[in-house]
């Protein structure tokens, strides 16, 4: 076979497969699959609907962010940007809450002083999830500083929660000790009046000779 023929065949093959590859890769997989998802189950449960809607929203949110950054023109409303920031910061704090190192805890506790109440609430939740008693002084300190009664209560409750032994600690200590407490009424009930025995006592008990 002539080299020119080989060249022509190889080039044609490369062009055809290249075009197919381009078509396959540029296919909007997300939209196609999403349409299948919506159409496949006519009666999804409320929880599934919520999860799917939320996931779609997250996807739309990211698309919006990407289109903003690529165009270079900020088109998002300030409140959208701020709510995205809260979501991202909350996620970051919860990520830190799963760590065990002191620097992660300090980052979480520093956010108890954030100007944004939503971030402070997220930091409180993260401190709970971090599950260290080292967070108690900072939580109580923040409770003393805030003037919002609901926030103060949440911070104090978080501190009280962390004072409790964790389930892991209880398990490591061998679990709860066997409960020996005999069932007693927790409320004081009036003592019932004495009454005669229903079953007649045995003759021996009464001293009657057999």
């Amino acid at each position, binding site marked *: 076979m002539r*080299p020119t023929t*080989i*060249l022509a065949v*190889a*080039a044609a*093959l*490369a062009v055809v*497969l290249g075009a197919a*590859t381009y078509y*396959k*890769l540029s296919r909007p*997989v*997300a939209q196609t*699959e*999403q349409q*299948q*998802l919506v159409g*496949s189950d006519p009666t999804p*449960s*409320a*929880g*599934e609907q*919520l*999860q*799917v*809607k*939320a*996931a779609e*929203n*997250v*996807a*739309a*949110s990211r698309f919006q962010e990407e289109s903003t950054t690529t165009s270079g023109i900020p088109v998002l409303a300030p409140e959208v940007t701020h*709510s995205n920031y809260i*979501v991202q910061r*909350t*996620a970051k704090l*919860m*990520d830190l*809450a*799963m760590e065990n190192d002191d620097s992660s805890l300090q980052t979480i506790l520093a956010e108890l002083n954030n100007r944004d109440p939503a971030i402070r609430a*997220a930091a409180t*939740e993260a401190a709970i*999830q971090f*599950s260290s008693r080292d967070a108690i002084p900072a939580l109580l300190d923040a409770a003393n500083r805030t003037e919002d009664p609901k926030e103060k209560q949440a911070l104090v409750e978080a501190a009280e*929660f*962390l004072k*409790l*032994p964790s*389930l*892991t600690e*209880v*398990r490591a200590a061998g*679990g*709860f000790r066997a*409960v*020996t*407490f005999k069932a*007693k009424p*927790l409320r004081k009930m009036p003592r019932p009046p004495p009454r005669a025995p229903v079953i007649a006592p045995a003759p021996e008990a009464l001293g009657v000779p057999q």
Partner: protein
Amino acid sequence: MKHMIRFAVTGMVLAATAASTIAQDITLTSSAQNLNVALTGYVQGEGTDTIANVQRVRITTKDLVGMLEGSSRARLMLITPVDYEGDVAVVLREPGTRNQPGEEFDVTDVFYSETYAVVEKSRVKNDRVTGTQYSIDRFTFGGDWEGAPEAWYDLQGYTTSNLSNGAFNSTVNGVGWVGSDAVMTGKISATGGKLETFVIPDPDWTDDEDNGDW
């Protein structure tokens, strides 16, 4: 002539590479949220004939992770499909490195939830849903089957969910077992909502063969 042959060989290599690319690299997207649990368990404690005591214990996500034999830095994630068909899954995700994602273990069977009633206040604008959903839900962990975790709970809660990002917060009450019978109260929530993509490497995967089993 040499150049022609080299060009032809290069073309064939390119074609082979393109063919292999067609057979794989299907990228799917899911939303990953942190699943957070913070419960207080009230257990009947030791006492006397005239005094009854209660012992309290806190149960957080890290305790559940420990019972599922995860490492101290593992986390519980709620994985929701975005562009593919499938159920919401709960995974135990070990921390990875900068270049290597951590291992994941599907623990969906250990968790169960159902919604009893739901109402919502929402608005759809530009294909985005915003609003709040209010629901009564049941959340369970563990059970009495062989190999189940050493503790369980069965809780019911009032849940508020943010429709725009999927975050939810449920105030729950119920019963459980933590080595003793326990009365439980607390919060279960999901936060975050990061998009994650993963690749299906199966070369035989096609749209027609997608039966929804994942």
